[in-house]
Structures are given as C-alpha cells and as structure tokens.
C-alpha cells in the first residue's frame, strides 16, 4: 500500500515486511475497499484521459442548443451556454483531484516535518508549534479554508493552497503525538545514546512509525478536501471560468434547477462517487494499517 522507508535495523525490517503483508491481506479481504480502489482508479483515468474520452470541447458553447436534456448527441445534456455536460464532467475530475489530492499531499509534506521537529525537540519548540496549531484548530476547517481563499483570491491554485493550509494543524498534531511515543522506543533511545544526528534519527527511526497514522488521516482528508474544493467553487472562491469544475457546475445549476434538473444532478453525483471511492479506499487502508480495528 504505502512505501515504508527501509529501516536500518534488521529486526525492524522484518517486522515491517510482515506488517505490510498482513496489511495487504486485510485490505484485499474487504470487498468495499477494493471497490473504492477501483473507483479511485476510474476517476484518475477519467481525469488523465479527459481530452481523449470527451465527446466535445468542454468550453465550446453553442447558443442554439442551450439547456438540452440528455440525448444521443449529448449523453448528459447541455448547460445554460450550450456546452456538453458530459465533457465538462470528465474535465471536472481534474480540478477535483488536483484540489483534493494535491492539497492533502501539500499539507502532509509541510506538516510532517513540523510535527517531527516539535515532537523530537519538545520544550520550547513544541510549546510554540503546538500553541500555533491549537489556535489554527480553534477555527473549523471550512471557515479557515473560506477565509484563506477569500484573502488569496479565487483560483484553483489558491483554493488548493487554502485547503492544504487548513489541513496542516491536524496532521502536525497526529505526527507529533506519534513522535512522542516513538521517541521512547528502545532502538530510538539507543541511536540517540550512540550519538546519531537528530536529523538522521528523525528520518530513519521515527518517521516510519509516523507514516501509517498519517496515511490514515490522509485517506479521511482527501474526500473531505474534494468536497471542500467543491464548496469553495460553489461559493465562488474556486476555479475561473470556463474551467470545468463540479462545484462551479453546481453553483451554475442552482439557477436552472426547475428547468434543467440534470445540471444539478450529474456534478453532485460525480462529487459523491469520487468522495465515496476515496472514503471506501481509506476505510480499507485504515483497517489494514490499524489492526485494532479488527476483531
């Protein structure tokens, strides 16, 4: 599932291999998780292949066929500007994945080192970092993201940034908690006594312990970010027209709900299925990585 970095000690290596194998078995034993994985692969493929599989240019408007219902020519109908909805749905997968996955990746890359340092050095560094994170955590995720997006200005890049920054505190807290525990492990203490440099200890001995809780958090965070990105677009803080985006499509559709309900149905279903795939996958990953969850 996840690339566990190679550890120096043979015992740890063997243990980690064993853990990985057990994890894989637990994962594949859950049909829902496999279904989720398939869903994620499909969405990723749609995003990558959008230009090839889309029946039309997602931005090409045709003012003679606006708000046409689903038909042979337009399988998902056309929108208020006569654009092919199916093509926009395919291309919309790109901004959804970009904002959802990239923001979580970004947050992880930023937060894990902060958490490592805070947990390893403790004392003043820890106190300052954790106080800052507590303050950030005092603001609900969505309000933080909306505020940041409003300050940065609407664009896909800024929405991704806002969603990413809003996720940092939780990951820092998780990382730090794991570091505090790992730091007391025998082989970590031994490395410290042997005079290994802190950076080496953090990278080689502590980091591997942090990976799986962070991955579990990421699997919860990705679908939440996908929905968060849709909300930002829905509030007008997301992509720039004519970029196809599911949240923006919903915002447009809201005006035409009584005349063209399909405009509101398809993008919502797309967000739902994508988030569901990630959640199913994440649930499987969580169960696989965290044996406590199984009887």
């Amino acid at each position, binding site marked *: 599932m996840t690339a566990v970095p190679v550890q120096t000690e043979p015992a740890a290596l063997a243990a980690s291999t064993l853990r990985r194998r057990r994890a894989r078995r637990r994962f594949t034993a859950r049909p829902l998780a496999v279904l989720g994985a398939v869903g994620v692969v499909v969405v990723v493929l749609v995003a990558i292949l959008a230009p090839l599989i889309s029946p039309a240019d997602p931005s090409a408007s045709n003012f003679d066929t606006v708000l046409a219902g689903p038909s042979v020519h337009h399988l998902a109908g056309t929108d208020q500007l006569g654009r092919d909805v199916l093509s926009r749905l395919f291309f919309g997968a790109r901004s959804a994945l970009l904002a959802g996955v990239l923001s979580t990746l970004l947050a992880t890359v930023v937060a894990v080192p902060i958490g490592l340092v805070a947990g390893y050095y403790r004392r003043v560094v820890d106190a300052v970092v954790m106080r800052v994170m507590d303050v950030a955590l005092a603001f609900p995720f969505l309000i933080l993201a909306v505020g940041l997006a409003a300050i940065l200005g609407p664009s896909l890049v800024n929405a991704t940034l806002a969603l990413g920054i809003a996720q940092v505190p939780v990951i820092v807290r998780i990382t730090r908690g794991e570091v505090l525990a790992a730091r007391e492990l025998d082989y970590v203490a031994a490395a410290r006594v042997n005079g290994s440099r802190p950076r080496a200890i953090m990278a080689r001995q502590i980091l591997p312990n942090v990976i799986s809780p962070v991955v579990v958090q990421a699997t919860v965070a990705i679908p939440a970010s996908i929905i968060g990105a849709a909300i930002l677009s829905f509030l007008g803080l997301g992509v720039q027209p004519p970029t196809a985006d599911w949240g*923006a499509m919903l915002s447009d559709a809201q005006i035409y709900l009584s005349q063209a309900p399909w405009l509101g149905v398809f993008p919502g279903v797309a967000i739902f299925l994508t988030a569901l795939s990630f959640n199913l996958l994440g649930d499987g990953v969580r169960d696989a990585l965290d044996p406590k969850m199984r009887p």
Partner: protein
Amino acid sequence: MVATVRSFLTSILLPTLAVSLAATACTSSVLGADRSSNQLVVALAEAPDALDPTTSSTFVSRIVYANMCEKLYDVDANLNIVPQLAAALPRISPDGLTYTIQLRQGIRFNDGTPLNAAAVKTTLHRYVTFAESNRAAELGPLTSVEVVDPMTVRLHLSKPFAPFTSILADRSGMILSPAQLRKLGDNFARHPVCVGPFSFAARPSADEIDLVRSKYYYDRDKVHLDGLQFQVVVDSNIRVADMRAGDVDVVDRVAPQDVVAVKDDPDTTEVSRTSLGYQGIDLNVGNAHGALKDSGSVDNPFSQHPELRQAFELSLDRSVINKIIFEGQYVPDCSPIPTNSPWTTGTACSGRDVAKAKALVAHSGVKTPIKVPLMVQAAALPEQLGTIIQSMAKDAGFDVQVQPTEFTTALKRAQGGKFTMFQIGWSGRLDPDQNIFSFYAPHSGLNYTGSDDPAIVNLLNNARTSTDEQQRKSLYRTLVDRLNQERSIIYLYHPSLVLGLRKSVSGVQFYGDGLIRLKTAQIDSGA
C-alpha cells in the same frame, strides 16, 4: 449502565435542548406571533444596510424606506415627480438657485411629533454635515435651509442643479423625526422614526426587519395591513419556493430563470418593470493611480488602442446575451438611460459585426489573441455573463480571462485602477444626471474607468445646470452619442425588475423605480 446513558441524555441533552428552544422563542419577532394575522411577509434579495437614510447606500434599503420613510417628493406610476410630504412641486426661482417648498398640513411623524419646516431644516442639516453622510455629495450645491414660516422652507443653492427635485424624491427628501434624532443621535438606525404608513418595530438581525402599522400616519385609513416583515432570502429560487409554499407573500427581484415557475403556479403572479439602472463593462481607459486621482496612461490594450474598445463592443451580441442568460426578459441597450424613462434618447446601438471587429483589431496592430482580463462578481450569473462575453469576443481575437472576484475586493480593485475590464452596473435614479455624471467626472469616486473626456464633462455640466427640460433632453442625446464613441463603459442592458406576489395580495404599487410600495396592500382573508 443503561441507566447511566439515560441519565446522561436526560441530564445534558434535554436541558440543553430546552434552553435552546426557549432561547429561540425569545428571538421571535414582535410580529411573528401569528402568521395567519394580517401581516405581510416580503422576501428581499439582499440585506439592507443600516436603516438611517443619512448613511444608506443600498438599493434594497430603499424598498424598506418606501414603507416607513416618506419623502418631500415621490414618483407616480409613470415616473413623474409628485408631491408627497410637500404640498406641491417646489417653486424654483428663475435663476434656479432657490427652491421654496410648502409642506402638507397636519402630518405627524410615527412618534406623534409634528412635521414642520424646522424638522426639514434639521434633517437636511444632518444630511449635509454628518461625517459619514452619503447624502452630502448628492445634495451638492445646497448651501442653506431657511425656515420661511412653520410650514414653508426655502433651500438656497450655490449654482443651478437640475436634478435637485428628483434628489428630494429619494433618500435626501426623507424627513427624520427631530425628537428621535435628539434621542438616538448617531444611533438613529437602531430605531428610525419618519413619516410613513408603517413604523419601525424591530430589527432582530441584519436579515429581518419588522414594521407595524403607524398610529399617526395621515393617510392611515388607506392602510389595511397590521404590519410588514422583511426577510432576506438571497437565492431567487428559494424566495420563489417560499412564496409558492405560502411562507412569503411578496418576492423582491425574481430571477429571469424563475419567472416561469411564478407564472405557472395558480397561486402566484408577477409584475415586471424595466429598471432605471443598467449593467455594462467598465474598461480601464485611464485609471492609472486610482479613481480620485488624475487620469493617465494605463498599460492595457484598451487604453493604448481606443479602436480595440470598438472592436470589443462589435464582437458582442447584446440580444444573444439577453436570450441566453436572461431568458430574453431584459432590455439590451447601449445607453445608460432606458427607453421607458421620460429622458430616453432613443439611441440606436451597433449590432454584432465580427468582420469589422477583426478589421479594427488588425488595424490596431496588436498581436492576437489579445489578452484582456474581465473582473466579474463571484456569483453564478455574473460568471455566466463573463463566460458568454469570453466566447463572443474570442471570435474577434480577444482572449478574455474571466476573473470571478468577491464584490468588496472587486470594488477595491476598480477604485484603485487595478483592472482591465469590470462587469458592473448601477441601480438607477430618476434623473439621468444621477446615472451618468459620477461615472465620467474627473476625480469622482465612481469614475473607475479613469475617463477624462472634456466634451463629455462639458455636456454633463451643461445638462445639470440647465433649467430647461427640452434643452436638457437634447444635451443628453448628444451626450449618449459621445459616450458611445468614447466607450469607457460598454453598456449592455437594462435589467427587468420582477416582483413576485401571491394572488391573495392586492393593492401593491410597483413602479419603474423598482421599489415595493405596500401602503395600500392587503391580503384576502379568503386565501
């Protein structure tokens, strides 16, 4: 252990719920007591600002004022100015410098105190001197208010100002109770008292305003409702759904997309009027250092190559925009003055001509595609408007980048000249001067485009100082032609203001100014 859980539920959840419910009860408005009573509920499209006509600067607040703050003058169904608190139209001296206004006898404010010349003087003095007043600028040349006798005032102007009577037919003509002003001072907005069919009762939050029938209103025999409740419901389709469900009686500004639903429902109907306002595109032609500063050269294609403005306009098809975005219900136009106004100039607009637009682009020598950002408000309809403009202008060689921008940010950028194009409009006033002057006068805060055309400024000044209506009309004809040559603002259309109402409601007056006058409204008890 089951017992523990139960006791947890009963000890924590239930009391919390009870407290919460009781607290909710406290918020219930004075009038919310019984929906079936004779109270009319109006759903407004946005939240009014502070309810003090001195500082007020939103269109929607004027809808509320129309029912609780009468003015020296008002308009009739044909948008002609008629006396309201004044006994007759003002006697204007031949030089246009003094306005003598006779007040109606026997009028009392909604706190029971009498309306007289001194009250008018107090109010106008506040409008001109209050630091945060948004009225001071529009009352511009007013220098002093003289109490001639208890029921007559004479207003002295420093120079002739043709729109003056129309300004007294708007917020600047609303007379405030001096007693209440003395009592509340700066906080008048917390409990405003004017003359009107309804008086202010409560504003529990920004989104709800409650009015009750006035005990002191001079024309109270014609008032049938016990009270009004204004509720803010931002989405048009939800406003309409609420009305169809019977939760709301009258709906402000039904969106074009929802008109069919209102028409089809046997219980609801709609009335449509063309707005006095307009929507268009501001091009930054000379706003180099901010709207309040001197105009200068700006580094964008429209400022550098004026022929590109014409090319851009020629690439647009106003009637297609109207058909696609506004269901064909709006009025495409290239003038700030709508055709239903007494001041209409009947200016003919150029249609779409891509070939000519391309020729102009070629002539300018600018390499295509010409990148031009277009700032639009971050909301579905403005973004769709931006997208359709983008797709039309593409044919002429423009690469329009639509930038949805949250409104306050957009205003800040526009004022500072940090934009190339901005899709914005104006809610509209009775006198054409009030819809054009501030957008073209140098150093005016609303001159976002940085326009500085001596011919335009000259025409505007002549038109506002002329006291002859025919002469003014001819000046505006010339002016609109001139505006269409300069093209710092490309006018697109006049919106239609659609009022939705339940069929059980009658007696609502709805004119071209878009205000909802509910003085004589009533709800059929049979419905």
